[in-house]
C-alpha cells in the first residue's frame, strides 16, 4: 500500500467495516437454525464474499 502512495489511515475504516460485517454475519449465522437454502453455502458466502456476502445473508438468508 505504501509504495502506491495511498494513505492507509484513510482506508482503515473500510477494512474495519468489512471485518465488522463478517463478524456480525458469522454470529447471525450461528444463531440461525434454518436458513433459506443450504446452511453451509451461506457460511462460505459470508466469509468469502467481502461486504456483499454478509449483507445478502442478512436480507435473504434468514427466514423472516
Amino acid at each position, binding site marked *: 500500500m505504501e509504495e502506491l502512495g495511498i494513505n492507509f489511515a484513510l482506508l482503515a475504516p473500510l477494512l474495519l467495516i468489512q471485518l*465488522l*460485517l463478517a463478524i456480525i454475519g458469522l454470529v447471525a449465522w450461528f444463531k440461525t437454525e434454518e436458513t433459506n437454502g443450504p446452511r453451509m453455502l451461506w457460511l462460505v458466502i459470508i466469509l468469502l464474499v467481502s461486504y456483499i456476502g454478509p449483507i445478502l445473508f442478512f*436480507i435473504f438468508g434468514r427466514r423472516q
Partner: protein
Amino acid sequence: MQWTTIVKKEMLEDFRNFKWVWVPLVFILIAIMDPLTTYYMPKIMDAVGGMPDGTVFEMPEVSPYTAIMMSLTEMSMFGVLVAVAITMAVIAGERKSGVAELILVKPVGYFTYILAKWTEKVILILASYIIGMLVSWYYINLLFGEITIGEFVPLVLFYALWLIFVTTLTIFYNTLFKTPGIVISVTIATLLGMHIVYRIFQHKLSWFPNSLSSHIGDMLNSGSIPSELWGASLVTILVSVVLLFASRYVFRTKEMAN
C-alpha cells in the same frame, strides 16, 4: 401508549437481529464508496497498469459539491434498495407467520400498528442514512474541500424526505400484498416507473418527488434554496401522508389469512 409499546418491541427486534448494526455500516459504505474511488482513481489506474508508457490522463477536478452529490446518487440506488429490503417484511411477514393476528386481537388499532411499524423503520433508516452522510462529509472535507455545515444540514434533511417516501411506499405495499417478495418487486417497479415518468416529463414536473436530488444540486451550486425544492418537498410529504392513510384503509379492508 400502545404506539410506543409497539415501536419499542420493533426496536428490540431490530437490535436482536443486528439490523441496528449492519444497516448503519452498509449506509456508511454506500455513502463513501463513490467519493473514495473517485479520489483514488488515478492511483488505481497506475496500480492496475496496462497503459502504454507515456499515457497521460487528465482527471477532471472534482469539486466537493460534486463529491457529496455522488454520495446522494449512490444513496438513491443502493440506499433505497437496502431501505426497501429491510422494510419488505415488516407487515407482510408478520401476516404470513400469524404474529399480526396475535397483536391485532389485542385492543391495538390498525393505524396504531401501521404507524408504529412505520416510525421504527423510518428511525432506523434515517439514523443509518445520517451516519453514512456524516462519514461521507468527513471524507469529502479531507479529500476534496470544504462543505460548510450550513450546506450539509439542508442537503441531508431534504434528501431524507425521499427516503421517508420510499419507506412509506414499501409499508403501503406491505398492507396490499402478503408475500415480502412481491412487496419488494412491486415497490421497485413503482420507483422505476416514477423514474421513467420523471425522465420523460422532467421540465414539466419540477415538483415531482424524484426531482428532489437535482434541486438539492441546484441548492448547493446557487447557495440558496430554490422554490422548486420547497415544492417538491411539500409534494413528497403529502404523498407520504396520503400513502399512510391509504395503507390504513387497505389494511382494514383486507382479510388477514390466506
